[in-house]
């Protein structure tokens, strides 16, 4: 397995935001975690991305202890969270070039240009990021996450605030990266889109992660029904 999290717990003060979460992700898998706002999805993904240290638990990425040796595993990760993790006064090309230099990407300028073409930002290469719409920013974030060709993608709410065409673009890109053998985790509260793209489903409610089923074991209707039942039970 590429990523293995076991008994991950995160407290903020006295409040447990993530409670003993266990998760493994294998190559070519798209794990979709569904949960409402405030369920702990973003905190969990930040822990997996080594941006946040868990209160307790173990995290292994490609066999390495990701909590102790975070610097060693970080360049295997492509991460999308709510923030675009870049500089708004720089252009997408300048941002990609800078982060590419940090990663040590070869043929950097060509790589940046290719990625920007692929995500449909070829006409905005020299515009500063702060003028971008939500959808354009999301496209940039995908390019940034893929820049160094990571083996694991951690995508927090990749569909939020996007119009239909942008959602389709993200869906297609996730499918393409899955075919390339990447391990992908997406968190979303949108069961419809999550079902379309996921190969395995989990619920995260009140910080508790629950394994549900593989995609071929469950229909979308059953998944939605189970999700609503869980939400009703904790409401």
């Amino acid at each position: 397995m590429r990523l293995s999290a076991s008994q991950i717990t995160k407290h903020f003060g006295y409040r447990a935001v993530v409670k003993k979460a266990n998760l493994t992700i294998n190559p070519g898998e798209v794990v979709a975690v569904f949960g409402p706002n405030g369920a702990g999805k973003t905190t969990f993904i930040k822990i997996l991305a080594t941006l946040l240290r868990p209160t307790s638990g173990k995290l292994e990425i490609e066999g390495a202890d990701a909590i102790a040796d975070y610097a060693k595993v970080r360049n295997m990760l492509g991460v999308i969270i709510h923030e675009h993790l870049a500089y708004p006064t720089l252009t997408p090309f300048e941002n990609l070039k800078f982060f590419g230099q940090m990663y040590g990407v070869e043929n950097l300028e060509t790589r940046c240009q290719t990625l920007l073409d692929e995500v449909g930002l070829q006409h905005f290469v020299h515009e500063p990021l702060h003028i971008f719409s939500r959808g354009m920013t999301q496209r940039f974030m995908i390019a940034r996450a893929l820049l160094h060709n990571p083996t694991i993608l951690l995508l927090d709410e990749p569909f939020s605030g996007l119009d239909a065409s942008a959602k389709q673009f993200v869906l297609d890109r996730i499918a393409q990266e899955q075919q390339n053998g990447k391990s992908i985790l997406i968190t979303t509260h949108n069961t419809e889109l999550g079902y379309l793209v996921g190969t395995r489903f989990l619920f995260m409610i009140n910080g508790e992660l629950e394994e549900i089923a593989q995609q071929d074991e469950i229909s979308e209707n059953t998944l939605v029904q189970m999700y609503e039942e869980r939400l009703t039970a904790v409401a």
Partner: protein
Amino acid sequence: MKAFRQIAALIRKDLALQFRSKETLALIFVFSVLVVLIFAFAFGPNFPPEKSERGKLTASVLWTAFVFAGIITLNRSFVIERTHGALHGIRLTGVDASHIYLSKVVSNVIFLFLLEIVITPIALQFFDLFDGVTIGIVLKLYGVLSIGTLGFCAVGVLLACMSTSTDGGESLLSVILLPLVIPIIMGGTKCTVSILVTGGLEEGFWLNMLVGSSLIYLASAYLLADAVIEE
């Protein structure tokens, strides 16, 4: 080699961001000139005839201007990193936190030193000390200012990284930074007075204090960088 390449990329990026933000650039420059002007109006137009008194006044004005301009600069350099999570983006590249720290120190020192190069002649002119200034005096003056700026940024970068991660951190920085940089300000001011009045550094004690405290701060902050940036 990889470390040097990363640090160089970080410094280039920091300087590009600093100089691209025209309003911050203007704010810091205008603020520094205003400090000089306010003191000049308060003590002028008839300045003390003794060069030693004018030297003391100029040194205090220069260091006041640079310390407060430095606080604004340090705050800005980390607010840029925090606003859209760019610091997380850098951390995700796997770069060592000490490289991030060093690049921030270097870029802030360069930025503030450029400001000092512009503001110092203005202050010397206003306080009637421009005549008799030789190349040697200018070099010594900029040498002392650059060492002081290095020490100030060494500790300031670390504290700015901490303070900007909290609510109201911008005002917090001056409260926690100023007491810590007192040895640098004392050493720097005394050395500046000495250079402006006598043209040289008469008392080695103050220069030793300035250099010593700057190096101690740089070494300590470098060792703490990983804990501060990663938390």
